[in-house]
């Protein structure tokens, strides 16, 4: 296991290095950056001085080596050009907690509801509950979460809304991680419904697959009730495809809740990232891209480990040692 983790860690470093390099040169090949917009009205001499200050007078290759050195030695991607004073670290510190909380809540709600609906749909296949869930899933997959968020906001919030929930905002201070639920309910559901749909469909298909496996007949033949067969054998065997779905969810959520963050004014990193891109804030875009890549790789690693747990036929380490 340790060997496996070490190997994966090395791969991760290599991948991150490649992501870093590619992003850097792609950004460098675009004409202009955050500075050009800021200084284009200044006299040429002043422009040159400012460019010099941020190191943009040097050729791209040299800048690349310099940035790489800073990243490797100090973990420093550089200061934001658009918003002076911001660095990747400071932004993460300030803006990561709301995003993480939002995502955790979305995942808990989305995956749990999705699994439950999927199991119901599979057990009542080709009957009314199955059709209702199917229609719901189709709807939720095809309508962007942005639209869902706006509809929820229109119908449920404010003085005229059904639930009198706050329209926008996010808990702060001591409520940052736990509390201020009325603020988090809508953003959570608006984002989670998409995952409910995805997981419900995946679960249903996986369940139907294993319902018709021979081992369920064996289970019935030793006197198990239908419910026992479902819980002991069918659900167990359905987890393999579901686990495949998981890393995508984790990775997708971080960037995917961007619209939700915007609509509900959640001070998270999703909205900040997009702002950086539109402003061509090179150091910040670089930093966030590498950060997202790292999260994606880690979640894929987690799902690989989970595979081994849900299906004993999959062994992480080849050979005899385990």
């Amino acid at each position: 296991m340790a060997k496996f983790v070490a190997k994966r860690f090395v791969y991760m470093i290599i991948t991150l290095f490649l992501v870093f390099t590619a992003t850097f040169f792609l950004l460098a090949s675009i004409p202009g950056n955050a500075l050009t917009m800021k200084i284009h009205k200044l006299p040429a001499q002043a422009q040159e001085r400012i460019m010099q200050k941020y190191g943009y007078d040097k050729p791209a290759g040299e800048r690349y080596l310099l940035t790489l050195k800073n990243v490797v030695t100090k973990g420093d991607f550089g200061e934001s050009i658009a918003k002076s004073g911001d660095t990747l670290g400071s932004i993460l510190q300030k803006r990561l907690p709301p995003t993480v909380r939002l995502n955790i809540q979305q995942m808990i709600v989305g995956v749990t509801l999705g699994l439950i609906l999927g199991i119901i749909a599979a057990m009542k296949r080709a009957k009314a509950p199955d059709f209702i869930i199917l229609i719901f899933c189709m709807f939720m997959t095809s309508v962007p979460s942005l639209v869902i968020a706006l509809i929820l906001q229109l119908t449920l919030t404010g003085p005229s809304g059904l639930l009198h929930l706050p329209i926008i905002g996010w808990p702060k201070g001591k409520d940052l991680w736990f509390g201020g639920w009325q603020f988090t309910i809508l953003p959570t559901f608006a984002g989670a419904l998409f995952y409910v749909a995805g997981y419900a469909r995946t679960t249903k298909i996986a369940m139907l697959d294993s319902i018709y496996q021979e081992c369920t007949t064996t289970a019935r033949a030793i006197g198990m009730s239908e419910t026992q067969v479902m819980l002991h054998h069918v659900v167990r065997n359905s987890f393999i495809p579901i686990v495949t779905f998981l890393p995508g969810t984790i990775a997708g959520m971080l960037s995917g809740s961007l619209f939700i963050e915007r609509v509900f004014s959640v001070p998270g990193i999703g909205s900040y990232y997009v702002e950086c891109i539109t402003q061509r804030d090179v150091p910040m875009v670089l930093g966030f891209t590498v950060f997202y890549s790292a999260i994606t790789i880690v979640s894929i690693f987690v799902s690989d480990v989970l595979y081994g747990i849900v299906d004993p036929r999959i062994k992480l380490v080849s050979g005899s040692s385990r």
Partner: protein
Amino acid sequence: MAEEKVMTPQVEEEAVEIGKNWKANPHKWTGDPNQPLLEVKNLRVSYHTYAGEVQSVRGVNFDVKHGEILAVIGESGCGKSVTARTIMSLIRHPGVVKEGSQILFEGKDVLSMSKKELSQYRGGDCGMIFQDALVALDPTMRVGKQIMENLRIHSKMTKKEAKEEAIRLLDVVGIPNAETRFRQYPFEFSGGMRQRAMIAMAVACQPKLVIADEPTTALDVTIQAQIMELLKRLRDEDGTSIILITHDFGVVAGFADKIVVMYAGQIVERGSRKEIFYNPQHPYTWALLGAVPRLDWENKQMLRTIRGTPPDLVAPPKGCPFARRCELCMNVCLEEMPPVKEFPGEGPENHGHSAMCWLYADDAPAEVREKAEALRVKGGEGHE
């Protein structure tokens, strides 16, 4: 017996010493030994498919006595497995057991059992061994745990007791290092081991009847013989009745007490093992026996094959189902269902030998009978 020498592969003594009995107290049935344990009466099962209603089983009758081994034999798609599953009440949508069918286990109709009774009956009174243990066992669950599940459903054993019993069972069916094996997954077992584990699971709760649905089809002949030996011991030591579903005469040769030959969802011939092997009466049985390779044949002798395929059971023929493939087919065979002809047995060996064929009608033409005699010799030759 000559036939055993011929039909069953010779196997060396099992490598694994099997010492213990199946269980501490083998169950002894009380009451009339002639009262059958299981009676199947007029069983009809259909599958509703897009192509129409597939009549898989069309009026099957047989019974199994205490401690008896019944072999159901026939080629693929003739309703053997469906019959076996119906006895366990395992038929699911789109399969339907037709009205008028009865399966009486100790006098109680399995088909009208409540969920609770069914749960006790399945696995408790009646165990089932499936054909391919790799798919029949849950691939993601430890073998021991699957055996424990059965024990825990049917008895009030604690987890610890169930575990000990499961290990003992694995040991009894001849799995070495039972304690290590207990913790392994089905994919870590070899084919024969898996089938042994399957048997351990089926017999865990000391059922009175074990249904073995092609238990050796996925195995090579050496392992086949070992598994059959294991099943035979189950009957000899514990008096368990066994229904063996197979398409292989070689498997039943040294094993079955009674044989039922099925074709196109019907029983075409039935009788004791001796009667079926030494004195088969139905052309289909001759054909099946003729298709078994034999050690006493001269070299280069062609095996007989049966031309064609079994009839489409969506629209079963109105006459004899075997007529279209039968070398002795008469006009009447295509038109009307043949009568069942009883053959008087010799002495106490009589198990009610009968065959369903027009050949034994009083007005069957002489030339067809002559032709039949020629075929009969071919089929029965070497078994005597």
